[in-house]
């Protein structure tokens, strides 16, 4: 089966456990969201998947082959991220030139077109770019590269609204054209909610949940109304959390709505991925 798979992946940095026995599959040809709060282990997971880090135990497999120091598997993966891996003194156009020499499937002309669309100055040094344009520079490289597994770590870090919209549009076009696997690691859930097909949530190095985005949305709902009515409704149910404001309350409940408990004074609505994520990770954003 074509997939990028983490198998019993554990990564420790000294006494800190960044990933704790994570088993997770990113099926080929889908857009996946890897959700987690800051420090949840997203970057560590992608770092291992791109051979930047070595797992303490377990492994990451790309189409069945271990990725660590395996040139064949590594040729199928490209990872962007905020970890400084490009020399600051390198010019953007030189970087594009190098990409073409390192990767057979890199389309330099497309990269230059994308750079123009994002108004990225290709004559600038990468070290002179702002945070947003550093992200854009990496996205331009990623979108111009024909690899099977594209790992985007916080891809819209520092991007303004117009650039974010442009990136999501280009990502969708790229996906429809190539049908490759895209993993978007982020904590900005609402932005990716509309485009992702599968969602994995990790927290404190552990996998909390992995399912399709629709399954996750259907796994819970919100119920709102007067606080005492909401509390009465929730009694005995699996409640993820309750927000109260004066005499009003909104509860986030897992499972299906209980029709016999619903009254005219209660409103039921689907739960957003953002809310599900916040309640599952349990600390509030």
């Amino acid at each position: 089966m074509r997939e990028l798979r983490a198998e019993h992946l554990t990564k420790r940095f000294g006494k800190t456990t960044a990933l704790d026995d994570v088993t997770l599959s990113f099926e080929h040809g889908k857009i996946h969201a890897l959700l987690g709060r800051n420090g949840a282990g997203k970057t560590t997971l992608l770092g291992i998947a791109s051979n930047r880090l070595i797992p303490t135990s377990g492994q990451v497999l790309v189409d069945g082959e271990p990725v660590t120091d395996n040139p064949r598997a590594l040729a199928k993966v490209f990872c962007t991220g905020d970890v400084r891996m490009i020399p600051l003194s390198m010019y953007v156009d030189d970087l594009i030139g190098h990409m073409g020499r390192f990767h057979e499937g890199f389309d330099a002309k497309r990269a230059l077109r994308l750079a123009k669309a994002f108004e990225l100055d290709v004559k600038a040094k990468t070290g002179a770019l702002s945070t947003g344009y550093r992200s854009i520079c990496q996205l331009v490289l990623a979108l111009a590269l024909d690899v099977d597994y594209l790992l985007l770590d916080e891809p819209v870090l520092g991007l303004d609204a117009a650039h974010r919209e442009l990136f999501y549009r280009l990502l969708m076009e790229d996906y429809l054209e190539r049908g490759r696997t895209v993993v978007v690691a982020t904590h900005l859930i609402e932005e990716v909610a509309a485009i992702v097909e599968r969602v994995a949530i990790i927290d404190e190095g552990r996998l909390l949940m992995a399912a399709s985005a629709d399954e996750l949305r259907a796994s819970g709902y919100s119920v709102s109304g007067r606080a005492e009515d909401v509390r009465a409704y929730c009694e005995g149910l699996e409640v993820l959390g309750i927000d109260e404001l004066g005499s009003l309350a909104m509860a986030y409940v897992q499972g299906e709505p209980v029709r016999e408990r619903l009254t005219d004074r209660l409103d039921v609505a689907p739960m957003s991925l953002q809310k599900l994520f916040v309640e599952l990770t349990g600390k509030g954003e």
Partner: protein
Amino acid sequence: MKLKAAIRYQAVELVQGAAAFCLIVGAIIVVFNLLSFSRVAQMTLPSLGFLPYVLMPLLALATFSDGVRFLMRMGLTRSQTIVSSVVSLGAVCLFLAAVEAVCAAFVPFWPLGQSLFLMTYGPQNGPLLDFLFTFLGCAATAALGLAFAALQMRFGTRRVVIVTVALLFAVGQLGPWAIADGWTWLFALAPGTSLANPFMLFAAVAALGLLAAWAASRRYEVR
């Protein structure tokens, strides 16, 4: 394809750095000679022949801080990054040795004024041996720099610096006279020792440095 691209990237960067170094040293030598020739000032130009052996470990450290990170971003394995670094540093050693040999052959004052090898062992040894000495010497110091950089990347700066300082201190305590005698023998400076000694010493140091770098590179990480 990736290894070839990596070697091209690193070698070009490093040889450019070494060429800039040669131009700066050359300019210093020319200015000194012009000043002396025109009698504006009477200055004795110090021997700068040791500088390539200082430059090489610095280049090895520099190529590790940026180069290896970049190569790993480009999808190279750890072994490939080491191979690329070694080949590229080797190219710089060849370049510096070639410059040294050309200077020894064609610049009149070079053998007795600037060449570390010819000044130490005598100008009769010629540019070819000067080339070999410079190449192996640069390779040895580059390998030490590479080993230090790889160990630093594997175990962290603090640990490697502490261990290095402790080692140097321990060596310093183990009888400076014996060590001085050892160096004299290794560099064939003692009466009756073979000229092959410094070459063998450099080759052995280079091999050990590369071995340490290779071993450390097996599990280093980019954070």
